[in-house]
């Protein structure tokens, strides 16, 4: 009689082989599962790094006209945020881009940032913060950081735009013709010269893209005969002259910070001593180009005839690279932190 023990062993061997093949197949999938789990943390760091690079090394898209000039109605046209002054100046940030980026009334967290600076398929949470070493400027957007997150820290310099402080008595007119109630003071912005004399953007005065600030101080001291004369800043008119074209009025500017006040006053307004006018970044972009000459004319009205702050008989005040006339742009150190989770 034949022995059937061998048949049983072969069955067992076949069953065991099938089991082992299945086991090996499952076992080889487990490291893959673990990799994807572990990949979470690695991915957060990678996304933080990428976001940091986009913020500090990229000027954003569109570049011309720049994304920061897009108003709230046009924000859908912004494809990518980027704070760098230009693509050739990594780590040098433009203040107007920073202010626009962190503007909570224009952009909402997280949706507006997710598709313009964080990217990726997952809905990441994040916190982006920026501050200067002197603590004068602090911005942040995002959630409170949890215990674990992907992280990058980048060091930057933030360009501080130029400004001019004009001492009014130094520009007082003279002669009988000047003893009137209406006085005009003109500031000349020579775009051609400003953009050609200094070509390195971190140190360049760029009237087309940057804030221009003109402070007129000590206006009371510019009066000669009538100390009680009431000074009114009536209007500010901007004229433009392009090559081979006549001088044309392009705009008026209707607000000014008066006597150190924190809120802008509408013109006409009575001034005791100081009048500051801040033309926001991009203000001149649409009305001028790199070959334009711009003239900002301040029209003052006095209650009584007097000699006063007036350069209509001489020459306009040149807003240029002379440190005596204009406080030149400087760079300020700061740090950017990006946390992703």
């Amino acid at each position, binding site marked *: 009689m034949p*022995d059937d*023990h*061998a048949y*049983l*062993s072969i069955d*067992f*061997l076949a069953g*065991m082989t099938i089991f*082992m093949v299945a*086991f*090996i197949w499952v*076992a080889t999938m*487990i*490291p893959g599962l*673990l*990799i994807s789990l*572990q990949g979470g*943390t*690695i991915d957060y*760091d*990678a996304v933080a*790094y990428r976001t*940091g690079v986009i913020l500090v090394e990229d000027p954003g898209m569109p570049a011309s006209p720049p994304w920061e000039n897009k108003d709230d109605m046009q924000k859908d046209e912004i494809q990518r945020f980027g704070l760098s002054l230009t693509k050739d100046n990594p*780590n*040098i940030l433009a203040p107007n881009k920073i202010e626009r980026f962190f503007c909570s009334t224009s952009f909402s967290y997280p949706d507006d940032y997710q598709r313009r600076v964080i990217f990726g398929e997952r809905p990441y949470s994040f916190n982006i*913060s*920026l*501050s200067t*070493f002197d*603590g004068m400027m*602090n911005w*942040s957007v995002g959630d409170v950081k949890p215990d674990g997150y992907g*992280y*990058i*820290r*980048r*060091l*930057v*310099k933030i360009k501080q735009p130029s400004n001019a402080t004009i001492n009014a008595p130094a520009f007082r007119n003279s002669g009988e013709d000047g003893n009137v109630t209406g006085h005009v003071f003109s500031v000349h912005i020579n775009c051609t010269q400003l953009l050609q004399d*200094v070509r390195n953007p*971190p*140190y360049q005065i760029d009237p087309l893209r940057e804030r221009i600030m003109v402070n007129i101080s000590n206006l009371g001291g510019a009066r000669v005969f009538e100390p009680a004369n009431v000074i009114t800043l009536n209007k500010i008119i901007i004229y433009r002259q392009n090559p081979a074209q006549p001088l044309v009025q392009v705009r008026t500017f209707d607000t000014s910070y008066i006597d150190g006040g924190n809120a802008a006053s509408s013109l006409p307004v009575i001034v005791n001593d100081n009048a500051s006018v801040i033309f926001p970044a991009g203000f001149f972009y649409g009305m001028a180009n790199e070959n334009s000459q711009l003239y900002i004319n301040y029209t003052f009205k006095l209650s009584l005839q007097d000699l006063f702050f007036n350069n209509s008989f001489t020459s306009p005040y040149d807003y240029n690279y002379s*440190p005596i006339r204009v406080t*030149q*742009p*400087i*760079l*300020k*150190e700061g*740090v*950017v*932190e990006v946390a992703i989770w």
Partner: protein
Amino acid sequence: MVNSDGQLFTIEGVAAGLIMLFSAYLVVSATSIYTPGDTHISDMQLEQLGSDALRMMNTPNTTATAGESLLQNITKKNDGERFKETFLTFCNSTTGGSYDNLQLSADLFYRDTLTKSVKQFHFAHSRNLTGGEHAVRVTEWVHLDLIGGDPLSGAAPGIDTRMQAVLMEVLLWRD
């Protein structure tokens, strides 16, 4: 009659062996994947920070001082103490106001005109290296217009007094 007891023992042994081998493979492969990735990322973060710090130190804040950067000025004056303070301020600052704990050791490489070779000159350190630190290396080329009276000329014998590029190398680690 043939005894089948031995066959069963062999198959059980083979099965158990295979399970043990695959368990070991699983553990080893799972461990070896993650560690290099994590190390690489913290190294990358430090390298980026150090390289940013050197680049920012080598960028003038204004054009008023003939375009000379802080790093150029410090190097010419051989001012290791100021280099240490500035570099650590840059690297350790955070937006929240807290202070990180990074340390540095910096060397300067220049061409020695006497031996016509590249010489190394210790420039600054925040504490001595013990060998156990996990440091990253960052470098920055510094353009110098050296004259005889500059302190670096006296401190680094053989350095040429002319327009030249020297290499600032910083080892950076977290305590």
